[in-house]
């Protein structure tokens, strides 16, 4: 994902991408639980943004830095996906 020099980054836009009227749009894997627990969902999206921000420079610095950053960001991905992203058959 490209980072524009102005405006919000993709990770910052994340909570706003799940409005009430997007629940049944097309083929999506968003669990209905998102809208039953929106506060928790938004908190987990914020945690992802934080994980990316904290590892951003290290990840860009070297292969070793990237290797160390991936599990930290991955854990933030998983914490949300575990409850809020439906797996596909």
């Amino acid at each position, binding site marked *: 994902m490209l980072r524009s020099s102005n405006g919000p980054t993709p990770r910052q836009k994340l909570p706003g991408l799940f409005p009430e009227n997007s629940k049944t749009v097309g083929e999506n*894997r968003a*669990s209905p639980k998102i809208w039953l627990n929106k506060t928790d969902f938004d908190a987990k999206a914020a945690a992802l943004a934080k994980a990316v921000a904290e590892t951003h420079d290290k990840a860009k610095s070297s292969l070793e830095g990237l290797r160390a950053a*991936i*599990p930290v960001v*991955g854990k933030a*991905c*998983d914490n949300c*996906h*575990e409850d809020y*992203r*439906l*797996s*596909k*058959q």
Partner: protein
Amino acid sequence: MIRRLILLAAVAAVLGLAAFWFLTIPATVPASALDAHTPDLVNGREMYFAGGCASCHAVPKQPDKTRLGGGLALNSPFGIFYVPNISPDPKDGIGTWTDAQFVTAMTKGTSPTGEHLYPAFPYTSYQHMRFDDLRDLFAYLKTLPPVSGKVRGHDLPFPFNIRRTLGLWKLLFLNGKPFEPDPSKSAQWNRGGYLVNGPGHCAECHSPRNALGGVIESLRFTGGPSPDGQGGVPNITQFKLKAWSEQNIADTLKDGMTPDADRVGGNMVEVVRNTSQLTEADRRAIAAYIKSLPAVEGRKPPPKT
């Protein structure tokens, strides 16, 4: 004439009930079937993570996964199961169980009081485990902290609340046999087959089930609707995993990242919390076995309503 018919009906009913009673006697493993055994706690720990015990039995909504006091509510088409306390607490857990009682629960699905256990507890897979591995696992469980508190009973509508009927279910869906190695395959493949079909119980989620809740054998590992009703579970035969190498599979089990840099989600996140604790050799063995599963197309998922 009527009196004779009534008598005949009564006799038939009594015979039918007697037959039902005999057919559904809960099986046990007697202590005499177990040799002398020195527990291996390192192996016990490996079986613990391969079996994924904490994923169901840890007290929910708290961070210490070694506290196996139970309480998690498991939704199913048959009602709600409340996972019991298997901590070594002597009063509320399994602290006073014998090895024979533990092996009986895991391989026969029978409780120490002689009742059938519900197969929401996947003894349909654990039945394939070796007694030595089970005894090592039991010894390891007893090193974990005791947790007091009994968990409430299950919430199941009639007739699913009649435990004795599980005796018939077991006749249909349990073969009671340990994993049979294939001598034509490598030791690694056989180790993988044992881990997947025994403690790993992968097929319990990764297979579709029939109306009675038994796995449809011909479609084992082809995925299906998630048992708790949330989303779907993928096909893990070569029909879907053709592009994955053995190393890819092992790596995904290590850190939850798929070969295309996605993350496994839903309940698989919890599975990887366990498989990440196994030895690399055991992950590779699981991968070798999974990679060998012939391509079978699963059923189409039901249309989204």
